[in-house]
């Protein structure tokens, strides 16, 4: 009885700590797996592995970073054969799909002009992100979107701290250049 109660408590604690990050994990899983089915599988496996090793999570630390580390480790371990090949073969089409998926889910409650402006900005930034190399995009998104600190990004990506810093710096420079280029292009076409 006592055990059953403690296991219920454990599950409750896990759900409270981990489930609020499900969408954030799915966002990263989509970018890694490059299709929805595999991303959902990757997400589910990540959650289960996290649950089984929840005793290793240090309360007070960043749960999202811990979960993302498990997700990336699991992806790197080649859980599903063919992911790497998919990564190698995929390109702009997925970025476009992701863009449409993400933008379609934007639930702006503002006026129509604002929604249009937001969607335009979202498209612009996603297109600019799609043009920069994967390692820079991945690092920037972990810092700016997932809001991890540099050490947490280093842990998730299994790279040195100095590499995180240089990727962020270089990534922002590339992104800025890409945005300027796209903005000029949009100006020329009048969109």
């Amino acid at each position, binding site marked *: 009885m006592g*055990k*059953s109660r403690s*296991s219920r408590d*454990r*599950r409750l604690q*896990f*759900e409270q700590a981990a489930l609020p990050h*499900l*969408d*954030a994990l*799915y*966002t990263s899983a*989509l970018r890694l797996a490059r299709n*929805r089915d595999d991303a*959902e599988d990757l*997400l*589910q*496996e990540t*959650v*289960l*592995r996290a*649950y*089984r*090793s929840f005793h*290793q999570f240090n309360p007070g630390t960043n749960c999202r970073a811990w979960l993302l580390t*498990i997700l990336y*480790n*699991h992806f*790197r*371990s*080649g*859980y599903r*054969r063919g992911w*790497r090949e998919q990564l190698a073969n995929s390109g702009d089409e997925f970025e476009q799909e*992701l863009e449409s998926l*993400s*933008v379609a*889910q*934007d639930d702006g409650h503002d006026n129509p002009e604002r929604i249009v402006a*937001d969607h335009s*900005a*979202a498209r612009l*930034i*996603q297109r600019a*992100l799609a043009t920069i190399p994967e390692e820079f995009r991945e690092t*920037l*998104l972990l*810092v*700016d*979107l997932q809001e991890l*600190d*540099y050490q947490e990004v280093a842990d998730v*990506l*299994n790279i040195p701290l100095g590499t995180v*810093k240089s990727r*962020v*710096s270089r990534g*922002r420079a590339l*992104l*800025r250049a890409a945005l300027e280029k796209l903005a000029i292009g949009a100006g020329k076409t009048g969109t």
Partner: protein
Amino acid sequence: MTCRDYIKKFLTVHADDELIGRERRAADSHVAGCIVCRQQLAEDRRLKALIRGHVPITRVPADARLRIRSALGRASQSLDVAPNALEGMIYSTLRHLRDAVLATVSRTGPVPASIAAIASVALIAIITTSRGPSPIPVPATPAFDLAVAKFDTLAEDFVPTAPAESEDSHGAYYAWVMDRDRAGSGDESSDLARTYREAGVPEEVFNFEPVGYGLIGGQVAESADGRPMSYTMYRGEKGQILSICLRAPEMAAPVGARYWAGTHTFYEYKGHSIALTFYPAEHYISILVSREPINDLLRDVSVAETDSSNS
């Protein structure tokens, strides 16, 4: 601090609030007095806000969310029964079985001698097993002896090596796997799995990282009768886990197992914990051996994911 220094060394980390102490004060002081660097900092922060504000977090579809919750419920139940409760469940099941056999025998009255003999043997076995937590001793098992001896030899100084007949590219490839592993670059498990595939042994590479064991590397060797086999070593703060894959068509699971979990059977053998797995293809078996308590190995294996293509 010059503008050049600021832009080169501090701008990015300043925008991300990663500076502390004296460096933070120096950076703050510089931008307070330099409009150009202040604009650069503001621009970096705008870029961050642009990503945060316009790259949406994608919602998990409702059906996927439901599947995950349901899988979590199942995992929660299975975790409840492992490992001590699992033992209790096995004993409880055996007791029920024993009672059922006794009830059947008493209902049916006199039974043929052969059936009575079989029932007696079964009852003795069941009663012996259900008597308490101490399991049937595992008989001497050559494959386990090999695993234990190899573990004791290799635990402290395992060096991933090329197979002896490596005139081809295997030598360089193995060294590369080892170096990448030491650099902690992260792709080593699939690289090693590929190496095993090329060598013709099962691609068994576990991911024990979530339970605190890193992959050290692998060796491909030959068994005494010339068949390929592999050793894979994992190391963590708790010690080591050695995985051995070899062909053993004559091998049957010895009695005395403590637990069964999925395709793995767990034994305590000569001061070591062992997980035995039979692969369906080509009579390969895998033996995981460690000095950690058997309950820990059970938990670690249940967490880890195997990368085997032969499973």
